């Protein structure tokens, strides 16, 4: 554990967008200076909304396509300068699983061939050897070569397809798996099965995961650390238990608030407080807001937020705190205070801004 498995430094990814039918053209900065580490055996989840750049970040790490600037160091090798076979060798042990299991598998190939292909690429020459390994891999993901081996993607359920995708990823003998919304489109029972499978494989094979998701609740189960992303920048990074229990960035609070909860109905007070935010449109990534990019939606925004870009750093009061607290960093001029909550799993009531809003609504209702 002396060195991270994956280090990303100041990644920037841009796309040129053509102005078309009223949509503004220009340079879209999908990822603007994002840095993160994934340690061996660790699961890091990157969470954000559509358009936050989380998938682009994953692809930049994979060098598909390579980022405009910044550096990716995987297992001690800088991927930026590598081309062709050297790049393929370097990133073989970094595999991806995608959201839509049907479109990410070749519709014409039987399952056995899909899973055997990475083995062939890795140089497993004998047909019998490949078949044996395919059998083992399918067994690892809960499928049976004799039953499922000859089927095609359309003959499988969504969950089975995703298991095939996982088996294909495992075939290359990965150290890191990047799962881009890998369970988001599955039914809840199947989702739980696949999450358990991924979790089991992590302990069994010592894998590391980079999980990309839009739902904080979905990755709660699997995350060691969580990075929250908004409009191409990281808002908050920290140990999962701290981010969930004591979120520092207003955007993280918004994401946590959005999770439907079984034990409580959406209360009128919460509705009105949140209704204010509903009006704020997500800004265009072509012309992001100056300073903090979240400020147009932020209930705590002030003049400073428009003028200065907040840097990702541990909050001021954490400087004197333990080393564990300094691992929790936030990019916000006015972060929520990281005061310890009474209950370890209870979330604080979202700080001063939220409480002020609450006081207002309760007083009007009385």
């Amino acid at each position, binding site marked *: 554990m002396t060195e991270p498995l994956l280090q990303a430094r100041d990644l920037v990814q841009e796309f040129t967008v053509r102005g078309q039918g009223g949509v503004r053209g220009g340079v879209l900065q999908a990822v603007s200076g994002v840095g993160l580490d994934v340690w061996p055996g660790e699961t890091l989840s990157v969470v954000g909304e559509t358009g936050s750049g989380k998938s682009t970040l994953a692809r930049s790490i994979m060098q598909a396509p390579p980022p405009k600037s910044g550096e990716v160091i995987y297992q001690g090798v800088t991927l930026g300068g590598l081309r062709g076979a050297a790049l393929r060798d370097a990133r073989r042990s970094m595999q991806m699983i995608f959201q839509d299991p049907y479109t990410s598998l070749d519709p014409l190939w039987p399952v056995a061939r899909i899973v055997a292909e990475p083995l062939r690429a890795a140089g497993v020459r004998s047909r019998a050897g490949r078949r044996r390994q395919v059998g083992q891999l399918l067994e690892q993901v809960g499928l049976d070569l004799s039953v499922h081996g000859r089927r095609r993607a359309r003959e499988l359920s969504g969950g089975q397809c995703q298991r095939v995708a996982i088996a294909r990823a495992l075939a290359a003998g990965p150290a890191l798996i990047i799962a881009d919304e890998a369970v988001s489109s599955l039914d809840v029972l199947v989702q739980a099965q696949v999450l358990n499978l991924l979790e089991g494989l992590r302990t069994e094979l010592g894998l590391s995961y980079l999980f990309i998701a839009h739902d904080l609740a979905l990755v*709660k189960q699997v995350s060691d650390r969580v990075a929250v992303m908004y409009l191409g920048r990281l808002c908050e990074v920290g140990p999962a238990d701290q981010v969930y229990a004591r979120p520092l960035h207003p955007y993280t609070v918004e994401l946590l608030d959005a*999770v*439907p*909860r*079984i034990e409580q109905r959406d209360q009128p007070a919460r509705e009105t407080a949140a209704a204010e935010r*509903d009006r704020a449109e997500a800004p265009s990534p072509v012309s992001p807001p100056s300073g903090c990019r979240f400020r147009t939606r932020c209930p705590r925004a002030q003049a400073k937020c428009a003028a200065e870009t907040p840097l990702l750093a541990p909050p001021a009061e954490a400087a004197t705190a333990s080393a564990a607290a300094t691992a929790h960093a936030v990019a916000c001029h006015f972060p929520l205070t990281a005061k310890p909550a009474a209950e370890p*799993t209870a979330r604080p009531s979202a700080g001063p801004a939220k409480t002020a809003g609450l006081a207002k609504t309760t007083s009007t209702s009385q």
Partner: protein
Amino acid sequence: MTAAAAPTAGGRASTPAAAGGASTPAAAGGASTPAAAGGATAPAVLEVRELSVRYRPRGRVVHAVDGLSYSVPAGRTVAIIGESGSGKTASSRAIMGLLPRSAEVSGSAVLNGTELIGLRDRELRRHRGRDVAMIFQDPARSLNPTMRIGPQIAEAIRAHRRRGGPAVSRSDARDRAVELLRLVRLSAPAQRYREYPHQLSGGMRQRVMIAMALSCSPKLLIADEATTALDVTTQAQIMRLLTGLQGQLGMAILMISHDLGLAASFADDVVVMYAGRVVERGPARALFGRPAADGCGTDTAIGGSLPQPSPSGASAGAGAGAGAGAGAGAGAGAGGGGVRMPYTSALLGAVPRLDRAAHTPLPVIGGRPPDLSAPPPGCAFAARCPRADERCAAERPELAEDSTEDAAGHAYACWHPLTASAPTTGEAS
């Protein structure tokens, strides 16, 4: 409306299966729900009885929906919950007359006193939009990409008025469309009027769809996985918008979803479907054990926003999570919930939750739903159920109301229901 209610009362006496749904509005409505506070007993906007949908592909018979009964009271939200293939979407499309011709639909669906099943398409069209409107999962595909959004809404307004009531002039329709865009809280509605669907985000498109659905003030809005394709934050916004509009306009909402968590937080009544049949149904508060004291709106407003309810949910969840087996009890026990059918309990246990500890296995059940062309003779869930025995495999349990409980309207179809006192820790495996 009285005509619709009378046969229901008769139906209740003859079929015990229908009893749960029919008594729901009377028992749990009125006092407890702010939306229904106006009337003492809300009359049902939609009354569905013994609805069945069958397909006959290549000589086989597929029972997509089998004897579905429920009612949607005015001003309330009913959620139909189920996995892919459980028949939830087929049942709602049968009501709207949107299924292909090959589908055999039987049973009854009475909307505002009119029987919809068996109506010709031309007659049905008179009700669609005006009495009942539907929003779908993919707003991008529901909108015309070559037409500005405003005129699409205006067109809907004019088309529906032409079939009844006075004609609407173009400029009036335009004004109404802008007003609707404002109602669904789209910023700068007059400018948005002239934009194309591709210029809008997914959430904004869904708002446009809602505006269009509301254009003729329907009594019932069917939302078929309307927020599934959206981000969690956008989903929360759209759900808040819908509940807000419901209060404003007094419409009923039939929510079709696979997400039990969403249903638990936004629906008044929940119907859980499995393999084409209802396996459990009841008021959300009875199923998910809301805090006992949420008698009135203000009470929940204050109590809910303070950290008070979170610890109760969190400690229950954490306690179950810390136990070795974790189990479906993590879900069922979360709020002292009253879920009785093991399938609902399994669904509940698998809902992603913020209060679960990291790296603890989620309670799962193996297997898949049965082949609907050859449904098992007994309980459809028996093959996957940890509590199943010979009787479950041989004999089908009917949906019956729980007489021991004080939660009226809570019905389930199970031979070996979970008991409220005994937690379901044995579920995991």
